[in-house]
């Protein structure tokens, strides 16, 4: 099975406190730790496991600036066979549809049976997988937390729905799926693994090579534009307990007792 996984390099929310810069035009990007989007990492692990079971290859692709290469390389260290960096100034300012249009062009250069994205990334939109599928006229399922290969033409997928329940579907290949966290346990990538792929050439594809014009991606094609970043005025919020740890604990135990929190 030929599998393409679309990945994104994002500020790592478990490593960083995300703060808004002084004039609200961006987040503070100095000293941010970046990594591969967590959902995408599960998608790559799933692709590798499928390949190891039924054969084929895994390609990872990202749309971004030259630093995107770092996450492509990391996922290759994990076990992906091929990596592609799609990078062009012309793509700056793309909205979800623009990114999907770029990925569609890349998909059409290959012969992929299965295309995976993360269920969401840093912007919490969860849009690229569904848009890409619609542009390609291929079936789509979101929030996938189980994949079973039935045969060369069909897979069975579980979707995470409300209440911890799982919706089972059968889907014809080729298809597009967005992957939910928890579908597997992504393998650890050590320094040694990264070193092994450090000198591999990663091809860079540009707007011209993909035949993407300004009407399809970039600022002028984007119908949604982010105006600012802000932290909402705190509402009433929590009463923050102050004092020494001992004082805080005394106060907390008092509250717990009053509210029936200690039996």
């Amino acid at each position: 099975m030929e599998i393409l996984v679309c990945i994104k390099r994002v500020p790592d929310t478990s490593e960083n406190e995300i703060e808004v810069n002084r004039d609200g035009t961006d987040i503070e990007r100095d000293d941010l730790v970046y990594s591969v989007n967590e959902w995408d990492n599960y998608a790559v692990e799933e692709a590798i496991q499928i390949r190891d079971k039924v054969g084929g290859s895994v390609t990872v692709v990202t749309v971004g600036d030259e630093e995107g290469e770092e996450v492509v390389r990391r996922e290759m260290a994990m076990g992906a066979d091929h990596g592609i960096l799609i990078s062009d100034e012309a793509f700056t300012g793309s909205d979800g549809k623009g990114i999907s249009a770029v990925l569609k062009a890349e998909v059409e250069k290959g012969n992929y049976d299965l295309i995976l994205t993360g269920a969401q990334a840093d912007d919490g939109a969860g849009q690229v997988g569904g848009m890409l599928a619609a542009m390609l006229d291929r079936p789509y399922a979101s929030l996938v937390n189980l994949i079973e290969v039935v045969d060369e033409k069909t897979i069975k997928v579980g979707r995470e729905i409300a209440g911890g329940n799982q919706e089972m579907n059968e889907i014809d290949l080729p298809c597009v799926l967005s992957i939910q966290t928890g579908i597997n346990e992504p393998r650890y990538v050590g320094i040694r693994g990264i070193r092994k792929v450090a000198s591999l050439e990663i091809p860079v594809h540009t707007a011209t090579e993909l035949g993407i014009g300004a009407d399809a991606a970039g600022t002028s094609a984007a119908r949604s534009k982010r105006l600012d970043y802000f932290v909402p005025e705190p509402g009433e919020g929590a009463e923050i307990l102050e004092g020494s740890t001992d004082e805080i604990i005394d106060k907390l135990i008092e509250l717990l007792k009053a509210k029936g929190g200690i039996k």
Partner: protein
Amino acid sequence: MAQQIFAYILHKDGTADDTALELIAAAGVLNPDASITAIVAGSGTELDTVCQNIGPRFDEVWKIDHEALAYVNAEVLRPALVRILPKASTILIPHEHFGMDLAPGLSVKLDAAFLPDVFGLEGIENEKLKAIREEFLGQVSTHVLCDVSNGVVITVRPGSFKADESRNRDIQIVDKSAEALADGVPGSARRYLEVVAAEVGDVDITKSDVLVSVGRGIEDQDNLEIVFDLAKAMGADVSCSRPIVDAKWLEKSRQVGTSGQTVKPKVYLALGISGAFQHLGGIKGAPFIIAVNKNPKAPIFQAADVGVVDDILDFIPELTDRINEIKG
């Protein structure tokens, strides 16, 4: 701005989802004078019951009735919606698992703009809609300006608009089935099989009065011991947020959130939980919430009654010791 706004209605067992009335409120912000049309897909008497029940709240109810929609599959519904929606439509869809299946592709097929997971709307000027969203798991918010001149698909975060129960109209149900499915039901390349119910764990957290809930701040599986010790001292049960289940440190049945369990405790102690809306969506019944988190900006402090800014790995053992001392 659109005089007609569409709202997609989720329903189950003949009852419309709470989001139905929330979408009316959202539509009201877009255009207070709009005619709001509900779109309901399903099958048979259950569908008719839903249409009757929501009928008075909407100016019109469009129903799409087919036995193949008894369990609605977004891949089947999407082309049907594309057929019946007028050009440059504004359509509101709840941002949950079905909306996430349906909406992004729908915006492509309608050539409409897409605004995902919106929780605030600030109105429209010159066909530009200003909406509010969150990024980075709720750590920051953004205003987004969206060109809606060719229509827009908006997924609305459940619970973010207060249900509008004020409307009372004559029921107008329009059967759109024939038009929507003019070419028959597409032989979908995606076929629904079944829903597998969540596994029942050894503890039923939906029945717990006091929950000690742990999140990513616990850092390591071995550290869970201090959480169980605290819960034991308090006489509470242990629940958790999604990352703990993803890491397979605790079973899925202990996960609180929209994709896990909905809990109704009296007291909820959130330890090292950032407080993403999906997690908060699983806490009902207005419990007394205490949050302990080393990040003073964690969204959980907005939802909590009382907060402690500290590292849970230091704080939990001290709290446990003191409770045990008191209890002797």
